[in-house]
């Protein structure tokens, strides 16, 4: 993914290409992540003033990493045009009761995709 924009009128051909191929947000790299599958992690309690993809309801909650998706550009930086800040993103599983308390179903769970920058060790 490139951060620089051409500021050129999108042609029909460019639009077709964008529809067909989209925008690749993944980075090919072997750089290790801060966490691994099975780790217990806490979503940081942070109140970013600008753009973030870390919703409020998950901040401060503890979950488990179930999958490492690899390295992706960091939307919080991209949305502000501050760079791509590539880092690992993980699928993290939280029990419904961890997020919503004992009134929630003991059976249910929520999965959300969280970047290294959103997480801390427990």
């Amino acid at each position, binding site marked *: 993914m490139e951060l620089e924009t051409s500021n050129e009128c999108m042609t029909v051909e460019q*639009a077709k290409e964008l529809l067909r191929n989209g*925008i690749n947000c993944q980075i090919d790299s072997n750089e290790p992540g801060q966490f691994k599958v099975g780790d217990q992690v806490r979503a940081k309690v942070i109140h970013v003033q*600008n753009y973030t993809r870390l919703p409020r309801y998950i901040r401060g909650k503890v979950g488990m990493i179930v999958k490492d998706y690899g390295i992706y550009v960091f939307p919080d930086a*991209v949305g*502000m045009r501050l760079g791509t800040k590539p880092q690992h993103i993980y699928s993290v599983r939280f029990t419904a009761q961890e997020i919503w308390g004992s009134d929630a179903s003991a059976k249910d769970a929520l999965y959300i995709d969280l970047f290294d920058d959103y997480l801390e060790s427990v």
Partner: protein
Amino acid sequence: MNGPHDLGGMHNLGAIPIEVNEPVFHSEWEAKVFAMSFATFKNYFPVDETRHACERMPPGQYLSSSYYERWLYALELLLNEHHLVTKEEIEEWLAQFAHSQTSSKAD
């Protein structure tokens, strides 16, 4: 940003508007707002910048606007911030369009 878009867990936002056989767009203007925004993706604005622009709509306005009204807000905001179009230009063109519509009605 702790904005109005961060809705997970919020109560009292009503019944889910389930529509049978829903069209892709409900009006021509929705289709145009969508396509104009799409045509700015990548070439003018990273998609995340457009998402963020939607979220910067003041909370009261965000929660009382429809989906494509929010997209329109984001489009106008970014066009203006990146000096592609000024607010004045938009209002000027709008006044001309409104005027031509009124005069054609009068004919």
